[in-house]
């Protein structure tokens, strides 16, 4: 399974440094990637992983240091050079052309042709081959990518990288938008690459996932490589400690909160994309988790409750007052707040400032005689920045410049700022570092203690089990079952999410205690 230790490394980086202004993003980093191995690159957001990968791909030039591929000096002048030398990247953000088909995306820039005329048959063959390689031959090459689910798009992106027959494949958070099933398939694909003489650098925040898939690891912290070794010999706690540089005791801080009277009542609600009507109720001070695979109807439910998508029937009531129509602004007035799963595309206006993004949903506190008090708003936002420990230069910084974890904090700050009392959180911890995650768990607990109600969609079972009072499981557009969190375990959740039936191992009286 593991490569012979004597084999010369495919890639060697030594003394690599890079600064942006006064910030030292990378400081004397050393890195070795063995032939055919899967090497995990671990670190908090801002630890320098992306900078290091940009240098490897040729998108950035290092200030100092040396890189070698197969023992030959490698100094790419741009991303094109990187590709020619066999370095291929799969980025966290999807980089597909939505209007083009799967085939057109996969073959983009490397179209098979004869004197400029496309050779469709040859391309179709190649596309089928790589789709086979990612174990999803059922994806149709002629479907426009925008019609695919986020998970399927991720697979297309991986297929595109593989179509270039890379020597070194860099995967940046490849499972962040995949369902559990698809993730497992991806692990198989990655392990399969070892046999094809492709070396993989695998970046992920999911440590359990890294343990499953990687042979070796390197931990980055504050731009330095602070440890590396063989995965089989590393314990999870050691890795976390290396990442954060301090003892990391509690991943899921448990904040005591009392469940009060019901506040959100959903009865017979059915969105257009859902298979069956949903009935559930949520109380003040309660955290209700929604588990399920990608596309199982959880996001659709949240969007229908919030009035972003139309309902085909049923009612939504907050504190006994019914809400109808596709009018998100009426939901906000009733105290609902939605955190979108699509942070970059929908959740935030990336071109606008931190202050704009925090206050966009409620500018009324700063309005006087029709004019906005920008100074007052700046002060208020600075206060939120401090309270939520958002790392930013100030309220006026463009939000696109912040790291993923900090962007997510801004998106959460908006809900708190608009004083939402019922929070609909869709994958709030996706793609963010472990420390930010832990902070977000703490807030969610704290919000529940303040009497706010939280609907919490997540594909990461440990966090659902760790912080929720009750957990509902969705399967193929329908609600399967709701139970107290203590009556679920990971296996039970997974079973309900994948086969649509709760296992019968749980005693009946516990199941009815909802």
């Amino acid at each position, binding site marked *: 399974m593991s490569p012979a230790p004597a084999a010369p490394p495919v890639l060697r980086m030594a003394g690599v440094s890079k600064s942006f202004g006064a910030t030292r993003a990378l400081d004397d980093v050393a890195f070795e990637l063995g032939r055919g191995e899967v090497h995990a690159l671990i670190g908090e957001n801002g630890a320098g992983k992306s900078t290091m990968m940009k240098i490897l791909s040729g998108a950035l030039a290092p200030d100092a240091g040396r890189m070698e591929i197969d023992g030959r000096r490698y100094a790419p002048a741009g991303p094109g050079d990187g590709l020619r030398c066999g370095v291929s990247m799969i980025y966290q953000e999807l980089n597909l052309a939505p209007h083009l088909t799967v085939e057109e995306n996969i073959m983009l820039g490397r179209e098979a042709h004869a004197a400029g005329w496309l050779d469709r048959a040859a391309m179709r063959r190649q596309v089928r081959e790589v789709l086979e390689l990612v174990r999803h031959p059922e994806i149709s090459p002629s479907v426009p990518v925008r019609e695919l689910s986020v998970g399927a798009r991720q697979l297309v992106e991986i297929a595109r990288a593989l179509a270039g027959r890379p020597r070194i494949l860099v995967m940046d958070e490849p499972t962040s938008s995949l369902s559990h099933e698809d993730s497992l398939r991806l692990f198989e694909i990655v392990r399969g690459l070892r046999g094809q003489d492709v070396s993989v650098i695998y970046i992920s925040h999911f440590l359990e996932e890294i343990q499953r898939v990687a042979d070796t690891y390197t931990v980055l912290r504050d731009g330095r490589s602070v440890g590396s070794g063989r995965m089989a010999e590393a314990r999870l706690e050691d890795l976390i400690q290396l990442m954060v540089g301090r003892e990391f005791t509690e991943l899921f801080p448990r904040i005591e909160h009392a469940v009060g009277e019901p506040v959100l009542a959903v009865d017979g609600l059915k969105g257009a994309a859902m298979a069956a009507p949903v009935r559930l109720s949520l109380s003040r001070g309660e955290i209700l988790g929604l588990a399920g695979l990608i596309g199982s109807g959880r996001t659709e439910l949240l969007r229908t409750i919030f009035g972003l998508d139309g309902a085909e029937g049923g009612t939504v009531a907050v504190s006994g007052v019914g809400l109808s129509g596709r009018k998100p602004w009426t939901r906000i007035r009733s105290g609902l707040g939605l955190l*979108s799963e699509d942070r970059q595309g929908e959740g935030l206006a990336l071109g606008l400032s931190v202050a704009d993004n925090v206050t966009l949903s409620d500018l009324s506190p700063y309005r006087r005689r029709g004019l906005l008090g920008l100074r007052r708003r700046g002060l208020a936002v600075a206060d939120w920045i401090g309270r939520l420990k958002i790392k930013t230069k100030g309220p006026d910084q463009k939000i696109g410049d912040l790291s993923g974890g900090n962007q997510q904090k801004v998106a959460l700050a908006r809900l708190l700022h608009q004083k939402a009392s019922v929070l609909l959180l869709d994958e709030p911890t996706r793609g963010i570092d472990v420390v930010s995650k832990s902070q977000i768990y703490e807030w969610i607990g704290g919000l529940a203690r303040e009497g706010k109600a939280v609907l919490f969609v997540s594909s990461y079972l440990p966090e659902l089990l760790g912080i929720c009072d009750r957990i509902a499981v969705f399967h193929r557009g329908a609600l399967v079952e709701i139970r107290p969190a203590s009556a679920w375990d990971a296996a039970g959740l997974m079973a309900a999410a994948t086969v649509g039936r709760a296992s019968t191992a749980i005693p009946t009286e516990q199941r009815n205690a909802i």
Partner: protein
Amino acid sequence: MSRQRRAGLGRALNLFGPFIGLLLVIALFALIPEVQGRFLRAANFKSVATQSVIVALGALGMTLIIIGGGIDLSAASNIALASVITAYAVNAGASPLLAVVLGVLTGGLVGLLNGGLVTRLRLVPFIVTMGMMGIARGAAKWIAGNQKVDAPMTWINELMAKSPHPPWLLLAPGVWIVILFAVALAVLLKYTVFGRHLFAVGSNESTARLCGIRTDRVKVLVYAVSGLFCGLSGVMEFSRLTVGDPTVAVGLELDIIAAVVIGGGSLNGGEGSILGTMVGVLIMSFLRNGCTMMGWPNYIQEIIIGAIIVIAVALDRLRHRDR
């Protein structure tokens, strides 16, 4: 060049880019001996300002639309229609004030229609306003009976007078109207909730909707307001020509859009400023003015203005490279 220095340069360009362009254009003609004397005269600057009024008013509204991620190709036809309506009203014996109000409202109505079609039918603004370009132009010709509409002289015709009455105004009343509205819109964009919402809609419509912004209402309003500005511009066109001409201002919508783009507006939405747009308008006016003084033929002007647009957008790319 280091990354930081480039970012600093980008910021400087962002702030002063359009101004630098304007100064370059003025400096260029000020340095050419043949026109120096005539070009650098206060009277010339006054006449350039007056000539800018019609495009400037259209560009004020267009700036709002472009910030919101839209486009209005019907602006010039709308101007022609409003000028015909104003002339028609004066000719029919309406008081000048009523005629002005009717002209402005006509523009607003066309804008409202644009906004309604864009939001209700979920059509692309480019298509809707391209259709409206024909509809408004046709309507103008129909109402005018396919000829110029004569009208008696009233105070409306003084709005665009090169030597204003009373003389202490220094600039034509139309110029002051532009300045007044430019300040008002700049304040609207920066200091009002509507302004924030407009930038949000242009920057990311999904986010805006998620934040409870009534995106459709914002868009309808913006098209209606822009229409009102076209209407006012039409009144100025009538003031200048003293007749209502349905064939006037053909292709002017491209000048208007160009002014916004030269001033830093992005056709992808979310970016643009009133000050930038006004500088954009002046750049084009000074170029026209200078070229005419040089005796350069019209086609030279067209080539230069075309090049300026491309250069402005290229500079815009440079500004944003580090973001």
